[in-house]
């Protein structure tokens, strides 16, 4: 098996953007290629994650269209889809292709355009990630799924509404200094608990905003990585797992096992334990999600995640900084771009170049989750000294 490194990266802002879906992909890929010494001829393949371009823009065949537009001629391309984990899956597939010697250099992109859609179109498109026959038919939305999760979590572990609100407060505070974020203003606990109910007990400020955006990285085998950059970021481990297909399928709704399974695989491959992680970008589509994710990823005991946030243990200067970028709650959630967007933020941390830099970050984790916990990818990245 070959070792794999990230040798280049590029992104757009996440927010309300004018560009179409193809242009967002082109911009992200072109920026990633420009960030390193990879020539077009060096690239063996392009994998692109996207969720709803077909439904919202009537544009499919995105991977080859983007590849041709940036001058990648003749290479194999494909689109991967797994709802909010679409580009985490693209990353994983590219990683596997290099690891097994099929390719040496692969561009991985994620892209989504969402803010131009009318609300009914938008909700239908997002809702397509739920199981139509069961959760969907009953009227359970994604905020509703996490409303169920939080209702059960508070019942079992006695977490308070204020502790949960601390997730949004932290992430919005982190987003203030991130120029890539959609929301760049802070909120208070009172703002969150007084905001309007969306899916009890979740309120508006517990929910991430939709966004448009694209992000891309260039992956290369470690044998050739040094020829493209003097600061390659090694991929220390990768995991990808399937979870439950609907709310009723969980024996324990406070644990989304796709995450714990993917994390176990990624940590095992990296040869690390969760206690060795310095910085995390995880899938905080809702405040309740961040608390559950932080436990499923092994950073806190079950039931302790909410108190950990409220006590500042996951702040940028805390013992384990979580979502120093502002996460989905501040950056926004351009669904298909989110997974690579997280990888981008972790890379900046490991290069020591982040606006909310975590001191001495040497091991970082990116965690991407799709559907009702249906699919997850976890990626462990190391600083350049790990090569």
């Amino acid at each position, binding site marked *: 098996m070959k070792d794999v490194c990230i040798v280049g990266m590029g992104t757009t802002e996440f927010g309300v953007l004018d560009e179409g879906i193809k242009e967002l992909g082109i911009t992200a890929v072109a920026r990633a290629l420009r960030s390193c010494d990879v020539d077009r001829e060096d690239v063996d393949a392009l994998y692109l994650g996207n969720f709803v371009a077909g439904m919202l823009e009537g544009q499919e065949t995105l991977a080859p269209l983007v590849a041709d537009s940036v001058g990648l001629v003749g290479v194999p391309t494909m689109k991967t889809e797994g709802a909010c984990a679409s580009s985490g899956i693209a990353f994983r597939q590219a990683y596997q292709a290099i690891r097994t010697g099929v390719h040496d250099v692969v561009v991985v992109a994620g892209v989504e355009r969402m803010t131009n859609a009318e609300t009914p179109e938008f909700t239908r498109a997002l809702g397509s990630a739920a199981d139509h026959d069961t959760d969907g038919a*009953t009227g359970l939305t994604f*905020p509703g799924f996490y409303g169920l999760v939080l209702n059960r979590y508070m019942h079992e572990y006695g977490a308070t509404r204020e502790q949960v609100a601390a997730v949004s407060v932290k992430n919005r505070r982190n987003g203030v200094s991130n120029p890539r974020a959609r929301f760049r203003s802070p909120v208070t606990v009172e703002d969150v608990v007084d905001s*309007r109910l969306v*899916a009890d007990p979740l309120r508006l400020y517990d929910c991430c905003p939709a966004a448009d955006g694209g992000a891309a990285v260039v992956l290369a085998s470690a044998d050739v990585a040094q020829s493209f950059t003097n600061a390659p970021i090694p991929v220390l481990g990768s995991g990808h797992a399937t979870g439950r297909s609907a709310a009723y399928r969980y024996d324990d*709704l406070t644990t989304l096992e796709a995450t714990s399974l993917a994390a176990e695989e990624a940590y095992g491959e990296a040869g690390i334990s969760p206690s060795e992680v310095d910085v995390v970008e995880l899938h905080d589509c809702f405040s309740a999600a961040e608390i559950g994710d932080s436990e499923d990823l092994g950073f806190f005991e079950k039931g302790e995640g909410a108190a950990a946030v409220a006590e500042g243990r996951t702040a940028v200067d805390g013992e384990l900084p979580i979502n120093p970028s502002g996460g989905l709650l501040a950056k926004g959630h351009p669904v298909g771009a989110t997974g690579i967007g997280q990888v981008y933020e972790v890379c900046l941390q490991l290069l020591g170049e982040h606006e909310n830099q975590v001191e001495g970050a040497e091991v970082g984790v990116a965690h991407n989750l799709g559907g009702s916990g249906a699919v997850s990818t976890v990626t462990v990245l190391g600083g350049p000294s790990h090569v």
Partner: protein
Amino acid sequence: MSESPPSFPAQRCADCGLRYGHGAHVCRQCGSEAFEDAPLSGEGTVYARTTIRIPGSDQQGEEPFEVAVVDVGGAESVRVTARIEENPGLGPDDPVEFVERRNGVFYFRAV
């Protein structure tokens, strides 16, 4: 004394006996494609509840409404995603009973 609720229309795998609340096409335990009706008691318990205030496109105008994960059927219970009829105060461990299945959706009410 109140009447017992209608029985809940569960199914079971005809080969291995695994019970299903929501229907299945293939048994996830043994792979069989054969199912048979196996009704259960309509008495249930709420596992988790939310109130949907911003619905998806297929439920516009019905808001607010309660969705819950419910364990139904007593000792042989199955877990389902269901609607709760107008009772936003219900929460985990509260008893409910089956009302009916309408357009493929299970409806429960507070006991």
